[in-house]
């Protein structure tokens, strides 16, 4: 699977600075905007959508992993990142544990040239399989650079 190719190092972070869930969602979106993976005019809408999604139910899926993900009107291709928070943040995760690994996935509302909705479930499955691997979580938590983090996605995709 080559889903790792959608994760550009410049969108990612190995040291999120946020102090809580709301500021983390803002930081995750800002990183996508700075990397030009998300148009700046969609920044506020993306943050709002992610907050609303968390209100429906935490995206903290357990084992220190969260997958903040939403559909976003006006987006024409998937914008995604993997990010690390060194200390971990309270996220109301299903297991109650703090979250330190974040897979952020913003996707278009509809399919198009740059987005195949049918592959979305496949991509989420790929993320879940990675996130279940204790080795992935351990190495991701220790990654020193964004490139190292994305390389880990590539390496672990082959396992």
């Amino acid at each position, binding site marked *: 699977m080559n889903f790792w190719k959608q994760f550009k190092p410049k969108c990612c972070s190995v040291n999120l600075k946020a102090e809580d869930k709301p500021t983390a969602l803002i930081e995750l979106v800002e990183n996508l905007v700075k990397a030009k993976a998300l148009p700046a005019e969609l920044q506020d809408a993306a943050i709002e959508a992610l907050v609303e999604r968390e209100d429906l139910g935490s*995206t903290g*899926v357990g084992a220190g*992993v969260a997958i903040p993900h939403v559909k976003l009107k006006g987006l024409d291709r998937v914008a995604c990142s993997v990010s690390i928070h060194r200390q971990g943040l309270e996220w109301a995760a*299903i297991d109650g544990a703090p979250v330190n690994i974040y897979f952020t996935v913003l996707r278009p509302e509809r399919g198009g040239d740059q987005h195949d909705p049918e592959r979305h*479930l496949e991509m989420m*499955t790929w993320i879940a399989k990675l996130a279940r691997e204790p080795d992935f979580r351990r190495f991701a938590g220790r990654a020193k650079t964004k490139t190292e983090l994305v390389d880990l996605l590539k390496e672990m995709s082959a396992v």
Partner: protein
Amino acid sequence: MQALTVEIVNPEGLHARPCHAIVSLALQYECSLAVQCGEAVADGRSILSLMTLQACQGSELGFKAEGEGAEELLRRLQALVSGGF
């Protein structure tokens, strides 16, 4: 052991939020819960495990619960899944 098979009716399939709903329900019971889709079997008490099933609309989910309240858990799961989560 109690068992149940339900078809997924919601268009997006078994994505993260339905997985969260299943696990939240399962964790209310002192039961084991296995969820099968095709050949794959997942732990119904783990969102990450359920997400690996990649179950789309029209797929059949087989639930097997064992322990206290298993019957009630399956009844509530049937309502949850057939109601589109």
